């Protein structure tokens, strides 16, 4: 019986010849990522264990990225706990270097790996052929101490892409369109696999954007084949261009969707659900108070280039705050060398350090009562960006930047 990419990765991690959807397997993890959103609680639980030991510290990567720079004494205490524990135990540690998923993809993830991350967007690693999935801190701690965990092998939804994105549509519009179609729990407990001849027209940045957002449809993970584009990325980032898994021809998919990329149009997700998706053209009268370009979804150099190309020579609309946060130090450095940071600054944007920033709704660019934000962040839940009575629209780097210039939601073709 054939296997999907997800089944093959779980079989490998379980040291089994086969794995199939619906069965529970005990697996060994390849990497364990945790950030400052929950690590202080993980450490508290660790310190209460009778037998305290870390199974293999070389698998652990800890990243302070959510509240950077620190915003309060309480946060400072939690982050200090994480920093001190990492140092005492020789755990790989980053602080201020960028958003956890961006750093994992730039530095650590390899094809065929099974990775737990204490963050829901850990599904972001599929473009490198790795099965990343988000867990809570108890699961994380168990894996940190034993090296193992259990997983329910997921069914796979397969998306076959043909054609090429056009008419100003981006990968962000593509994945929002898919989530709008299948719903916020349309892939609950499942893997989403992307394949087909259209894949060759999607860059690594596009692919990361697509995999990253799959949790907003409830997905356990997102997966792709490791082709020459993915291998080139691995090589450029100092890693072996290893092969990934490919789903067998007789693998069982729960459902197959065929999507012509040329039919995708620019869209936004309206408050307060990521699956509440409409074409940008239908919401163009909505005035905004703030715009945000950044996050693990759309904070890469390709997104900043796109934004800069739109705003160059123009100004942020009066009364609008436009925050830009490169996803990592590497992206920030590249943006500086290309003059992109300068372009945003000249336009009147507020360029901040690499971190989760506005998407996290806690330390930068928090919005007030009744205010409207358009964001490339990952979520638009009620209160996600600040006051419980505020409104978040999600869109592409192009839509967000154009809206910052116009002062209301518009497509990039309208400015």
């Amino acid at each position, binding site marked *: 019986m054939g296997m999907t990419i997800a089944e093959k990765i779980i079989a490998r991690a379980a040291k089994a010849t086969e794995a199939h959807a619906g069965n*529970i397997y005990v697996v060994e993890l390849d990497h364990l990522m945790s950030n*400052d*959103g*929950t690590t*202080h*609680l993980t450490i*508290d*639980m660790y310190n209460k*264990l*009778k*037998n305290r030991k870390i199974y293999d510290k070389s698998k652990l990567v800890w990243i302070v990225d*959510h*509240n950077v720079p620190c915003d*309060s004494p*309480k*946060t400072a*205490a*939690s*982050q200090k706990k994480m920093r001190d524990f990492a140092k005492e135990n020789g755990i790989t540690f980053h602080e201020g270097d960028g958003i956890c998923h961006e750093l994992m993809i730039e530095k650590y993830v390899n094809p065929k790996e099974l990775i737990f*991350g*204490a*963050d*829901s967007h*850990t599904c972001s690693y599929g473009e490198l052929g790795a099965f990343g999935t*988000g*867990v*809570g*801190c*108890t*699961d994380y*701690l*168990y894996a940190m*101490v*034993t090296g193992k965990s*259990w997983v329910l092998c997921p069914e796979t939804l397969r998306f076959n892409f043909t054609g090429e994105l056009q008419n100003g549509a981006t990968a962000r519009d593509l994945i929002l369109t898919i989530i709008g179609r299948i719903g*916020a*729990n349309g892939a*609950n*407990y499942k893997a989403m696999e992307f394949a087909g001849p259209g894949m060759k027209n999607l860059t690594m940045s596009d692919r990361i954007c697509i995999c990253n957002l799959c949790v907003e449809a*409830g997905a*356990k993970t997102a997966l792709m084949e490791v082709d020459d584009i993915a291998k080139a990325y691995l090589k450029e980032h100092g890693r072996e261009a290893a092969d990934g898994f490919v789903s067998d021809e007789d693998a069982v998919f729960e459902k197959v969707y065929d999507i012509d990329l040329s039919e995708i149009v620019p869209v936004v997700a309206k408050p307060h*659900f990521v699956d509440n998706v409409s074409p940008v053209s239908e919401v163009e009268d909505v005035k905004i108070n703030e715009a945000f370009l950044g996050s693990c979804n759309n904070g890469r150099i390709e997104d900043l280039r796109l934004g800069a190309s739109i705003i160059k020579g123009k100004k942020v609309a009066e009364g609008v705050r436009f925050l830009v946060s490169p996803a990592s130090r590497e992206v920030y450095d590249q943006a500086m060398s290309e003059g992109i940071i300068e372009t945003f600054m000249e336009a009147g944007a507020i360029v901040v350090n690499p971190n989760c920033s506005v998407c*996290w*709704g*806690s330390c930068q660019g928090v919005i007030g009562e009744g205010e409207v934000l358009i964001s490339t962040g990952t*979520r638009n*839940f*009620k*209160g*996600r960006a600040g006051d*419980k009575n505020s409104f978040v629209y999600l869109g592409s780097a192009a839509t967000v930047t154009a809206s910052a210039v116009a002062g209301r939601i518009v497509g990039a073709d309208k400015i």
Partner: protein
Amino acid sequence: MGKIFKYGKDVDTDQIIASQYLLYPTIEEMKTHTFESLDGDFIKEVQPGDFIVADENFGCGSSREQAPAVLKACGIKAVLAKSFARIFYRNSINLGVPVIVCSEVYDHVERGDEMELNMEEGYVSVNGEKYACTRVPAYMKNILDQGGLLASLDRV
């Protein structure tokens, strides 16, 4: 018996406990902000032994384990929903919070109704009616019965 707090579909973890409280040092300090954006009365009214009854996809969104942890700290005995988001479901089991799939009860109860849960036989009683619940899979039931995942770790 415990009273019901009833919420709709796609209740996300930001609504259960918002981002700005997650880095508070302890769950006890966070719990007073439970459901702050969704239901300001929850924290005033909740008593140990109460239930949450919800529509589909309860707990969607972030992986923050603080979400089931604050519900547990508030004394919530179990969450019954038509379906649960994956990470919330798993986190709840790991913390020993019963999360029970029940397709029927949501459509027949109101906030404040008194309900009784029979985990062993797999049903709830409310307003004179019994509603069957889906059994928790054996692997996860074993974790729940031990009082959560870390209890098993301590015996390693």
